[in-house]
C-alpha cells in the first residue's frame, strides 16, 4: 500500500430510500481497518461509496487525497477493489474468474500467485467455480480481486457464510496480505472479536458512536 487513504467529509447517504449515513466525517488509514455496527448502520453502503459503486447524497469521499468523483471510476475500482459479502462468480473455471478483472484492462493475471495469496492451492485453477463450497468460492472472490493487485481491499463481511475453521483460515490470509504484502484492508464485520483480531483501528458506525 502506497497512498490508499480514504477521507470522508460531511457524507450523507441513503439506501432503498432510507437515510443510512448522516454527516459522516472520518479517515481511513493504511493497514487494516474494521467497520462495525448493527445491521442497517450503513457499513456496506459506506464500503460502496469508497470505490464509487454508489455516490453519497451529500459530502465528499477522497482517495489518496483526491475526490473520488475526479478519478476514473474503473481505475478507482481496480485500485480499491471490493469483495462482496456473498460469492457472485462468473460461469466457468476458477482461472476464468481470476483472469477476468486483469483482462478487462488488457493485462494478464498471475493465476497461481493470486490463488496462493487467497489461500487456495494452484490446483484449483481448472475447477468449475460454481461447484466449489461457499468458503472456497469466497476465497476465489478474494483471489480475483487480488489478481488486480489492488492497493486496498474492501471486504464486506468476508467470513459471514463460513464455519469457524474456514473463518480462521480467511483471517490468517488477510493478516498475511496486510503484513507481508502491504495491502490495506477495510473490512465490514458484525463480529467485534474479528475486528480486534484483524484491524489496527475499528470504526463504529452506530449513530450514538459517531463523533
Amino acid at each position, binding site marked *: 500500500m502506497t497512498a490508499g487513504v480514504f477521507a470522508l467529509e460531511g457524507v450523507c447517504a441513503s439506501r432503498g430510500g432510507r437515510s443510512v449515513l448522516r454527516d459522516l466525517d472520518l479517515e481511513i488509514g493504511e493497514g487494516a481497518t474494521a467497520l462495525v455496527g448493527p445491521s442497517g448502520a450503513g457499513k456496506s453502503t459506506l464500503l460502496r461509496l469508497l470505490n464509487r*459503486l454508489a455516490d453519497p447524497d451529500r459530502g465528499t469521499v477522497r482517495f489518496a487525497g483526491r475526490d473520488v468523483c475526479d478519478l476514473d471510476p474503473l481505475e478507482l475500482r481496480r485500485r480499491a477493489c471490493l469483495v462482496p459479502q456473498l460469492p457472485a462468480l462468473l460461469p466457468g473455471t476458477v482461472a476464468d474468474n481470476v483472469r477476468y478483472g486483469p483482462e478487462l484492462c488488457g493485462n494478464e493475471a498471475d493465476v497461481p500467485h493470486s490463488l496462493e495469496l487467497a489461500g487456495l492451492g494452484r490446483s484449483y485453477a481448472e475447477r468449475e467455480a460454481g461447484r466449489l463450497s461457499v468458503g472456497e468460492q469466497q476465497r476465489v472472490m478474494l483471489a480475483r480481486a487480488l489478481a488486480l493487485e489492488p492497493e486496498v481491499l474492501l471486504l464486506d463481511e468476508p467470513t459471514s457464510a463460513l464455519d469457524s475453521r474456514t473463518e480462521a483460515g480467511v483471517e490468517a490470509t488477510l493478516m498475511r496480505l496486510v503484513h507481508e504484502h502491504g495491502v490495506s484492508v477495510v473490512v465490514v464485520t458484525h463480529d467485534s472479536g474479528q475486528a480486534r483480531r484483524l484491524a489496527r483501528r475499528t470504526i463504529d458506525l452506530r449513530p450514538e458512536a459517531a463523533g
Partner: protein
Amino acid sequence: MTPVDITLTEVAASLALVAIAAAVSLWRRAELEGDLAVAVLRSFLQLTAVGYVIQAIFDSDSLWLVALLLAGMVAVGTFTARGRARRVPGALRPIAFALSAAAGVTLALVLALDVFPAEPRYLVPVGGMVIGNAMTAAAVALNRLGDEVSAQARPLEATLALGATSHQAARPLVTGSLRSGLIPLIDQTKTTGVVAFPGTLVGALVAGAEPIDAVRLQLILLWLLLGSVALAGLIATSLGYRGFFTGAHQLREMRPAEE
C-alpha cells in the same frame, strides 16, 4: 389476383365460431364470455376504422399520409411496449428509436431493392406488420432484461467492482434478452408452412392468388420481418440496458415498478 368481395353478412357469419368459444367458456365456467365479447367488438370497431383510414390514404395516394399513419403506429407501439418494460428505466426512447429504425430501414430497403412499388397499398401493410412485430420483440426483450437485471443485481455489481464498464458487465444479460425477443419469430420462420400457415399466405390464397405467387409474397414478408425485428431487438436492448446504469458505471437502485 381477383379482388375480394365480402359482405357484412359473411363477416357476421364467422361469429358462429366465436359463439362456440363462448359456449365452451360457459360450459367450463372459464368466465371468458365477457372478454370474448369485448375482443369481438374492439376488433370490429378498430379494424373498420383502420379500413376507412387506409382506404382514404389509398385514394389520396399520398406518401406523406403513409408516413403520418406509420408514425402514429410507432407512437402507439412504443407506449404499448413500454408498458411491458416498466422495470427498464427510461425505456421509452430506446423503444421509439427501435421501432422507427425497423420501419424506416425496412421500407427504405424495400423501395431501394424494388421489392414493392412506392405506393400506399404496399407501404402501409408492410410498415404496419414490421412495427407490430418489432413492438412485440422489443417488449419481450426489454421485459426479460428488466427481470434479469433485477435477479442478477448482485453478480452485476460484483463485476462492476472489478473495474468492468456497465457495457461489459451487462453484455451477457443483454445477449440473453435479445435472444428471448427474437426466438419466437425465428421459430415461427423455421416452422412456417409445416406447423402453421402464415397469415399473408392464407390471405393471398383466399383472395385467389396462385399458390406460387402467394408463397413468394409470404417469403418476402417473412424475411423482411426477420431482419427488421432483429434490428429492433438489437437497438432496444443495446440502448435499453443503459438506463440501469449511471455514467459512472454504477448500477441504479431497482424499484419494483420503476418507470
